[in-house]
């Protein structure tokens, strides 16, 4: 995709904002980020957060560029420290001429270029609350990068509207004080002026560009898909999705339930889906373990269920607030018995928004679970997204390969879109009983070539719906018939072919390099990092292209086999110990990866690291 090329004139400034848990770092990075996006820049913010409520060491990286960015930058030119004692830890992350904004000199290491600003005092004086040091830091940073205070008030209003006018006013006052503290020193002001927007075609204010986290995009994608019931037991990194749904439950018409445990969350969502509400359950890898039984239940009872599964480093509790991609194979094989599922692996906020809609479409159409597999990094990062990417998918369902009369009422996934169909208080979709169906003759699991049976909901007039976790007859009653068992297993698993067709081929992100000698495979949140590393490698003459998998199940084996011609070298980049994507490539299409660039310390890959790792692998044979 063209947005991943780095055009000439590309330039950037990188900031690090560091502090303790509870100091409002996320407010700084989001406020600053949104102001920069409004000013016409592309911004990428990642969060490095410890699993604690107060204290510790948290930081955000803010990358500001005049071209699209989807990964952390290299060295930072600006470090804003809400606690000077933390500065020393960031020295290796700083560029040579970096500026450090800090409260006091006492704790600062030698050889830095500090601007000492009494952030807490300013906050106390102008914001009447030392916690507004974060607002003062926003102001100071704006001055450092050469922006003015225009729009600050509007931004704080938009961020803190619910907290009242007074809070907005005091935040603005603190930001102004921080700004002035830097601006008085002409030498220092604008020291790391932002790059010119000259190379950006649509420069200037861009209401059509958003700064949004992966978690928020997932929640909004689900809302776009018409989700009605959202369930969860809180667990990082899925919690922000649920909290977003809770906050907006009323206006978006959602029922959001925090249940007693993950087992209940999944089963409640299944019950709601059986009764006709589009339902989603959100959890992390550990919670997903508890949901395996329910996943299998959704497969057996053919209930549409969307699961948002956030990966963090395991096993067990692992690193609770950090990132990994080690639940790839788990998500594909989870649950006892054999049943079809889709596993989608969106790269960023834009893809997450669309993946949520795909997941609901597939779950509904094929009456089976669809998993959105993401990681902490993707969920917590703030991504700059063109608003026109975030579209409501009004696609009507294409007819299945075997169009049948019953499709009159099971093609309602199409009508489940916001366009037609009466919906009850909970958005329950009324599926029409087809004319000519004898009273009380409905068969929930009627055989069909595609494996998909017409789906009526309990409550349909003069029809009854039986769903069963036991092996069942077409009606839905318990059976132990060997013949029926064979028919039902075949029926359920037949759906995988349809899902495979629907999901299509993986994207080769860099089309012009389709003839590349080395193909670099990755999935999920690695896309931004890998793509940028490949730009650098190509600039040094390597013939490389990326294949990013935005879904991993059903594995697009045919499409991948087609990409991997005989003389091509295949490598993977993945954030796990055992090279799970490489295993999948080998197992599903007999492609042996020549090597794997791995990271599993709970932190996201950097571009430089992937570049170096790949150069070693690529250079070995091709170079």
């Amino acid at each position, binding site marked *: 995709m063209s947005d991943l090329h780095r055009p000439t004139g590309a330039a950037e400034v990188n900031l690090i904002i560091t502090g303790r848990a509870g100091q409002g770092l996320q407010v700084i990075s989001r406020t600053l980020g949104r102001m920069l996006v409004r000013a016409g820049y592309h911004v990428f913010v990642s969060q490095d957060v410890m699993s604690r409520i107060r204290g510790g060491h948290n930081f955000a990286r803010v990358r500001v560029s005049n071209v699209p960015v989807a990964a952390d930058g290299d060295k930072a030119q600006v470090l804003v420290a809400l606690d000077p004692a933390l500065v020393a830890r960031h020295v290796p992350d700083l560029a040579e001429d970096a500026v450090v904004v800090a409260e006091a000199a006492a704790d600062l290491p030698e050889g830095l270029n500090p601007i000492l600003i009494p952030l807490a005092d300013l906050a106390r004086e102008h914001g009447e609350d030392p916690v507004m040091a974060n607002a003062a830091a926003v102001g100071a940073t704006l001055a450092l990068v050469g922006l003015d205070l225009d729009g600050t008030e509007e931004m704080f209003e938009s961020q803190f509207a619910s907290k009242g006018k007074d809070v907005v006013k005091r935040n603005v006052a603190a930001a102004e004080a921080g700004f002035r503290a830097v601006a008085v020193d002409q030498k220092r002001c604008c020291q790391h002026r932002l790059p010119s927007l000259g190379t950006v075609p649509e420069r200037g204010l861009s209401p059509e560009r958003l700064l949004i986290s992966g978690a928020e995009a997932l929640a909004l994608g689900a809302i776009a898909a*018409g989700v009605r*019931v959202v369930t969860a037991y809180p667990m990082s990194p899925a919690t922000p999705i649920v909290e977003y749904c809770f906050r907006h439950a009323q206006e978006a*018409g959602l*029922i959001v339930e925090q249940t007693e445990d993950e087992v209940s969350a999944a089963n409640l969502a299944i019950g709601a889906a*059986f009764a006709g509400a589009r339902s989603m359950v959100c959890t992390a890898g550990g919670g997903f373990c508890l949901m395996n039984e329910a996943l299998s239940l959704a497969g057996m009872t053919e209930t549409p269920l969307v699961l948002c599964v956030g990966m963090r480093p395991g096993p067990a509790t692992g690193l609770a607030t950090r990132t990994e991609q080690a639940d790839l194979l788990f998500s594909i094989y989870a649950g006892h018995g054999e049943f079809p599922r889709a596993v989608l692996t969106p790269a960023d906020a834009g893809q997450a928004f669309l993946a949520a809609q795909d997941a609901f479409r597939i779950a509904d159409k094929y009456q089976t679970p669809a998993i959105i597999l993401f990681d902490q990094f993707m969920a917590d990062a703030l991504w700059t997204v063109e608003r026109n990417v975030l579209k409501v998918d009004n696609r009507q369902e294409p007819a299945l390969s075997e169009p049948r009369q019953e499709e009159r009422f099971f093609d309602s996934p199409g009508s489940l879109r916001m366009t037609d169909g009466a*919906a*009850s208080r909970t958005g329950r979709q009324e599926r029409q009983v087809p004319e000519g169906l004898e009273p009380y003759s409905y068969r929930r699991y009627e055989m069909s070539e595609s494996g998909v049976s017409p789906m009526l909901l309990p409550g349909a007039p003069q029809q009854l*719906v039986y769903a069963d976790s036991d092996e069942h007859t077409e009606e839905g*009653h318990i059976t132990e018939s060997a013949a029926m068992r064979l028919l039902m297993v075949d029926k359920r698993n037949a759906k995988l072919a349809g899902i495979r067709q629907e999901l299509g081929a993986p994207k080769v992100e860099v089309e012009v390099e389709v003839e590349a000698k080395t193909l670099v495979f990755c999935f999920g949140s690695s896309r931004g990092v890998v793509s940028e590393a490949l730009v650098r490698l190509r600039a040094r003459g390597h013939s490389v292209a990326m294949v990013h998998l935005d879904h991993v199940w059903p594995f697009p084996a045919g499409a991948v086999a087609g990409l991997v011609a005989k003389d091509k070298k295949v490598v993977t980049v993945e954030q796990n110990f055992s090279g799970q994507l490489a295993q999948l490539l080998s197992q599903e299409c007999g492609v042996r990866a020549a090597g794997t660039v791995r990271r599993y310390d709970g932190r996201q890959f950097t571009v430089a690291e992937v570049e170096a790792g790949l150069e070693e692998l690529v250079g070995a044979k091709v170079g």
Partner: protein
Amino acid sequence: MAEPLSPKSFESNDPIAWCPGCGNFGIREAVKLALSELGLKPEQTCFVSGIGQAAKAPHYIRCNLFNGLHGRTLPVAAGVKLANPDLVVFAEGGDGDGYAEGGNHFLHALRRNLDMSYLVHDNQIYGLTKGQTSPTSEAGMKTRTTPCGAIEPAFRPLALAVMMDAGFVARGFCGRPRQLADIIKLAVQHRGFSLVEILQNCVSFNHVNTAKWYSHRIYDLAEEKHDPTDRDKAYHKALEWGDRIPFGVIYKSSRKSYDELLGDTIGSRPSDSDRVPAVLDRLLDQFS
């Protein structure tokens, strides 16, 4: 209003797989009677069950049915009720399903107080898995997994329910289907979570708590003029076990149901699904 359907019209044609003489037959009679007398149509009801001999019961009734996993009855039933409040929702299962595997869900269903009726067939033994101890087996009871007698005391679900201020708490007996039907009707009419604990004999595995054993001990609370709104008295009745075992309505709470409170706290939900694109636009605006 149309004539109510006969109890017989609630019989499904699925062949029944219970042992002859099983207490489940009496419970089935009572459920059929109650549905008929409540004037319900089969499609207005949804029965959710888990695993166990009791969990098969909905297959033998004409009703909408979700027969899910062992112990997971109450969460599924909650999902059904939240998604379609118009359905008359029943959860149905045994003592193992509800009190052992589903114990945590039971606790929180009592707390949540969603409008549904939970019918627990309690025979103090595991039937489907052939005779192991249950949470409601009496201390000292010998079973396949307690050959020297159960060590733990029996769980008293009704007392827990009263303690939790559950919406509606009652006990019935499979040997008195007429009275049981009346209790089930009251449970359905109560807006909130209704627990109906049903004493039931197991002809194959429980040779202590037989139908005769129960018959000799039970007495009707209505005849004692028990006031189910008196929580202290209800608690004592809920704990009464041994020579005399009360049946009937033990406790009724004045708590509002979860669905009522949900409406009170966040208001009614939009009913017009066409609104989604507009809502979405508004929500996305907050990220610019």
